[in-house]
């Protein structure tokens, strides 16, 4: 089992992943935004590196080095989906 410190670190990282906005096509089951973010943290070392990378993007945007549209430019579908507990599945 991981130490409490490692858990706490992951939780802090989770809290930092905010404000990401893109669009894509979904399956019939709504995975839940929060649950997707958590999967990054549950992905072991590679997950933590990915979390850091996502945060780095956010940091660049916040510092004005990068624009939000660039960070979001990978989307290729156009379905806007409202995510909340009541609309899943």
């Amino acid at each position, binding site marked *: 089992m991981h130490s409490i410190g490692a858990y706490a670190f992951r939780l802090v990282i989770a809290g930092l992943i905010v404000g990401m906005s893109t669009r894509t096509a979904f399956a019939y*089951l709504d995975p839940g*935004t*929060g649950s997707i973010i958590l999967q990054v943290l549950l992905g072991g070392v590679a997950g933590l590196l990915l979390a850091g990378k996502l945060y780095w993007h956010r940091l660049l945007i916040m510092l004005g080095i990068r624009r939000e549209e660039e960070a979001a430019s990978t989307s290729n579908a156009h379905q806007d989906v409202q995510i909340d507990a009541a609309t899943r599945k």
Partner: protein
Amino acid sequence: MQPPASEALSELAPAPDRERVPGPAAARAATAEPGSFRDRNGAVFYRDGEILRGISAKALANWERLAAAPFFGEFTARGSIVCTERLPDDEARAFGEWAAVLRHEKVPFISYPYEWTFGMLKDAALLHLDLMQAALGAGLILKDSSAYNIQWRGAQPVFIDIPSFEVLGKGEPWVGYRQFCELFLYPLFLQAYKGVDYRPWLRGQIDGIPAGSLRPLLSARDLIRPGVLLHVLAQDSLQRRYAGKPQNVRSSIAKAGFDKQLIVRNVEGLRKIVAGLQPGGSKTVWADYDRTHSYDQAEFEAKCAFVREASRHRRWRMAWDLGCNTGTFSRLIAEQADHVVSMDGDWMAIEHLYQAQQNRPDRQKILPLVVNLSDPSPAQGWRGLERRSLPERGRPELTLCLALIHHIVISANIPMRDFIGWLAGLGTSLVIEFVSRSDEMVQTLLANKDDQYGDYQQDQFEACLAEHYRIRADQTLKGGKRHIYFCTPKSEP
């Protein structure tokens, strides 16, 4: 895809609301499974006792990948995935809109997670995770994680929702992760960490237990238990934070390089957590029945001999053992029956039976279920048709009802005549034991109750039986304190 318990891969009793499948004449004889609607990429229907599933072009592409994957053949061969074949195209065309039609093997009896013991739910969860690992290795994934996608061949779990396997897109997360938590992990946590029976919770909510419902039950001590901090607390917090916001993190994480290795790590972690869970809570009343029943050895053997002889009356396709306890008599009738469904309201007795069956040759014949007959599983879900009530899921040909009637009449206050009438409604042969007022078990039940059970007399019991049944054999047991009967329906010659 979420489906299926309802998608009952079993021969079901006719349901009045079952709709005809629209389409050409050959398909008109098919009836649609009313619980099969959540995933528009497929639908289950029945025709001439066969279980068929129409699938879309997208689902067909996934099926072709799955059918070619070695792990699919391996799991199917060992009985962990339901046997499935594709209908020839000329036959499938009769069903109109679908790109292809699959035919599934029948599962003997459909059951639901709220009827399973802890060990059953845990083994079902482990099978789901094993299938996830195998699928990921082949570039596939299970797109949903419904516990209802697992059914039982006796005491062996079998995965039934074939279209749930789909090709994993690059950078895609595990869409079914939250559902896995709600329908497998949290119910197991509830029992393991809090000693709370999860069955009423699962029966109460078809989609399982949300993180937000489990969280308030957790104490500070629970936070250090495996899986709680991340899978419950962090998930609940993150869900709350993002609830109602139109943000889509899916392509963001894909772009940042989310990889299937992250899913593999998560699945490995979950497998470790689930494998380590043990049921909490104290011992129940009947768990030691094998050693504590009220018969002496000679009388017990006489009872066994009567049951065995009655079961030899003919071969039975399906038998029910009601109030089966740890299953001693289920095993006796399994010698003469293709399948036995063994039910008892005491989960620990059923757990005992389930675990004991794992190494027995009749493992695939006896399905143990936690069912309280005075409050059996109802029909529920959308239109009350997604999950079926107990008798709607297929009826037995033989019913065993040993040392149960006093619990029904005295503990549950159900009139004896009503109960015998209900049994007769099953239309089966019956082996039933009457436990008289002189028996110490009845005296215990009456010790602190008003005796309002004037009808609880052997002559009245026999009169009730005679209304519906022909008594073919009977025998006094336990020095006259009990009496056992073998009856067949009056309608039978």
